[in-house]
Structure formats: structure tokens, C-alpha cells
């Protein structure tokens, strides 16, 4: 395990993250460092611990040990709302738009309490994706794709420095998928850092400058995708291991 030293280029540093669920080691001694201004990928087969890692970083799971430093501040143990207000936001795999709240309310509640122009901000975001007319429509009356879009806009309301994206394009039609990824690229160009869980390797290859690979709770590889793609351990993690010789 590397010594916990903050690197000025790293917006997020996690050292020695371990999470145990009654005997099941969801995460074991995981180190992860996200460089400021990048789009970093987090990949790995099902059940490898990717979502658990997001739960831990975002504060939703308080049961992990280790150190997490965000923008030079230790955030392990902070409650999620604090972490969000500090500038670290997170989206979910399945849409969690507030169904009875209007689109506008969905956005405003995620904005700062002290911001007088929070509604303006919300309208601005809606304009960008041509959803302004849907401002007074309730979340439950949107299509699934629209809901995912609104959920994405929602975390933008606090102008976060780092956004954790959990399979943002899952279950979404190709056009909308393109819109989402374009927005990610655009925001990244303006300085927002992204850590993305994705299964679509084309996207990872296209978008991410840095990739971490989790398998069975352990970080088994890290680097640019071209190197990862040929990494024997990674291939084995995805494809599976043959049985140990000697059994029937």
C-alpha cells in the first residue's frame, strides 16, 4: 500500500479502502487516484465492487475503512449531503428522479439554499438540453431517457468539481446516449473531473485517459486503456479462470 500523501494533481485520493459485508470482502485494500481534469474509468466484471466503491466515496456507505481525500480534505465519515455540498456529486445506475416533484423542483432542491438565482440556473441547464418546456412536468411523467437526463442535470446544480457517473447510458436510446457523452466531454473541457463506471468498452477507449480495473474487490490494473486491454490479469478477470487442475 502506498503512503497516504496528497498529490496536488489528484482531486480524489483513496488509500487502503476495505469494505466487508459480514465476511464477504466487497473491497480489499483498494487504492484509487483521480487526476484533476480527467475522465477516469472504473471497470471490472459484475460483482467486482465498482458500485460499492462509489457508495463509499459518496458517503452512502459508511462502513468502509481506509482514507479518502477529496480536494485535500479527508471526507471519510462525512455524510453524503456534506460531500455533495463540498463538490463531489454522484449519479445512479437507475433513474432516481423525484417522481412527484416537477422537473424544476428536482433541480432547485439540488441547488444551493443561499443561491438567489437558483431557478435561473435550473432553467439554463434545461435550455441546454431542450427540456425547458418540461419544467413544470412531474418527474414521473417523463420518459426514462428524459429522467436520466434530468438526473444528470440535477447534480450539475451545485457545480461539482468531481462527478461520479454510474453507467450513465444504461437503458437509454442511442441518441440520448450521445447527448449525455457530449455533455460529459463539454463539461470536462470546462474543467469538471469525471470518474465513470461503464461496461461499454468503446466508450471507455474513446473517453478515458486513465482506467482502473477492479476484480473481486481488488484493484488489479491501472493505466491507459490500450495497456489494460492486453493485460493478462484483466482478460482473465473478465473471461474467468479455468478450474484448478486436479479436480474431477
Amino acid at each position, binding site marked *: 500500500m502506498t503512503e497516504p500523501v496528497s498529490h496536488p494533481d489528484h482531486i480524489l485520493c483513496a488509500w487502503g479502502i476495505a469494505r466487508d459485508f459480514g465476511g464477504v470482502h466487497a473491497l480489499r485494500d483498494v487504492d484509487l487516484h483521480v487526476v484533476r481534469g480527467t475522465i477516469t474509468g472504473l471497470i471490472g*466484471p*459484475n*460483482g467486482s465492487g465498482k458500485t460499492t466503491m462509489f457508495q463509499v466515496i459518496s458517503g452512502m456507505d459508511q462502513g468502509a475503512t481506509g482514507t479518502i481525500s477529496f480536494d485535500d480534505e479527508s471526507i471519510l465519515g462525512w455524510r453524503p449531503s456534506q460531500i455533495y455540498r463540498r463538490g463531489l456529486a454522484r449519479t445512479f445506475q437507475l433513474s432516481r428522479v423525484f417522481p412527484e416533484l416537477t422537473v424544476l423542483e428536482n433541480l432547485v432542491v439540488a441547488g444551493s439554499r443561499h443561491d438567489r438565482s437558483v431557478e435561473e440556473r435550473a432553467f439554463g441547464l434545461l435550455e441546454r438540453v431542450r427540456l425547458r418546456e418540461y419544467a413544470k412536468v412531474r418527474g414521473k411523467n417523463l*420518459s*426514462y*431517457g428524459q429522467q436520466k437526463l434530468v438526473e444528470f442535470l440535477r447534480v450539475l446544480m451545485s457545480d461539482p468539481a468531481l462527478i461520479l457517473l454510474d453507467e450513465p447510458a444504461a*437503458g*437509454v*436510446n442511442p441518441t440520448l446516449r450521445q447527448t449525455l457523452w457530449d455533455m460529459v466531454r463539454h463539461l470536462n473541457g470546462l474543467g469538471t473531473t469525471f470518474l465513470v463506471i461503464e*461496461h*461499454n*468498452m*468503446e466508450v*471507455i*477507449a474513446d473517453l478515458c485517459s486513465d482506467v482502473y480495473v477492479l476484480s473481486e474487490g481488488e484493484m488489479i490494473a491501472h493505466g491507459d486503456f490500450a495497456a*489494460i*486491454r*492486453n493485460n493478462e490479469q*484483466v*482478460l*482473465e478477470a*473478465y*473471461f*474467468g*479462470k*479455468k*478450474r484448478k487442475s486436479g*479436480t*474431477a
Partner: protein
Amino acid sequence: MKEPLLTVHDMEVSYGAVQVLFGVSLEVRAGEIVCIIGPNGAGKSTVIKAVIGLVPAQKGQVEFDGQPITNSPAHEIPALGITYVPQGRIVFAQMTVADNLEMGAFLKRDSHKRREAVQAVFDQFPRLYERRNQPAGKLSGGEQQMLAIGRALMMNPRLVILDEPSLGLSPKYVDLIYEKLLDLKRQGRTLLMVEQNAARALELSDRGYALELGHNRFADTGAKLLANEDVRRMYLGGA
């Protein structure tokens, strides 16, 4: 050549506006073990869910034993001789192991036959016999998986379909389950399974289909697919 027991022909499935299968085909012959492998999003689970009626297929045909069964209601499938072991070890946690097995044969009216079937499963899975009166929720993951498989055998099915039997199991239990599947193979059972752990599945299977993003990519014997480096690379979008 024998007529295949199950054929899937040019199947297309969409979840709302999102299409996940773009014309997938496969066949399973009696006595074979066939596996479906592929990276996430390949549509593996969707194929079998469409076969057993849990998900509607917009296009394509499914035939079992020469009869078309495309989009049959799910509850009619077990009566045809097809049983299903779902992903995630779905057992009735509050019921005992023995009762869980009986639930697998509730179509058998004759309680004597049901008990015989339960006994047959206990013979096959001694561990389940040891725990026959325990609530299923108290079993370990591997034992629950065995229970789910045992339950699927209760109707003496012509075809057993398994969705990721090794998912979430520790290596020790993966070995155990695959031993049991090997036993089933030796008994001449026909199995169709979807697996994340491609290596183990291909070792066990006579033939396999590799899917990628809703399309057939590779189809061959288990051994050949196992040796094919392109299949491995497919998982990381490289092939």
C-alpha cells in the same frame, strides 16, 4: 443428425425504445450442455428470458421439441418440460429446504410422486438432505444455488435453463456447483446456461455461443471457443 430440442431463430427483443437483441439464433440438442457467454450488455440473460416468456420477443421464433413456443406465457413453460434456475439463487427463505423442493413440483398432483422426486434430489445432493428441515434463508450461497437447481429438477425436465449459476459464489462453491452440473451432464441431462465466468462454462459445455451487444459473434464447441484468443479479447472490446 438429431433434431434440436430447442431452437431460437433470429430473435429480436427491445426494452421500450432500447433494442438489446438484433437477431440472435442458437440451438440445443438433447443431451448437450450449451452455454451462452459474452460481455455485459451482450443480451445473454435476455435471450433466455425471452425463451421462457419472462420478456416479450418482438421478432423471431422459438421451437421446443418441434412445437413453436414463441412468446408463450411464462407459467406454461414448466409444463412443457423446461425449467429455469434464475439469477441470484431465488429460494423461498422462510420455507424449509424440503418445502422449497416440493414447490418445484407443485404441478405434480400426486403427492407420492412428489415425495419420490424430492428423495431423488436428496440422493443427488446429500448436503440438501442434511439441511432438509432448515429454512432456506439460513443456507450458504452455494447451498442455496444447489437448492435452486434441485428445485428445477423436480419436474424431471427435458431442458434446464440456468442464468449465471456461479454468480456471487465463492470459488469453493463455484467448484461445487460445477461438479454438480458435471454430474447432471453425465446423467444425460440437457442444459442451457448463461454464464459470466466464461472459462468454467466453456470447460463444461459441449458447445457455446458468444454474444456481443445483442449479436451472435462466435459459435463453436466449448473447447474451441476456450482456445480462441479472439473470444477472450471480445470482453474488452478488442477483437
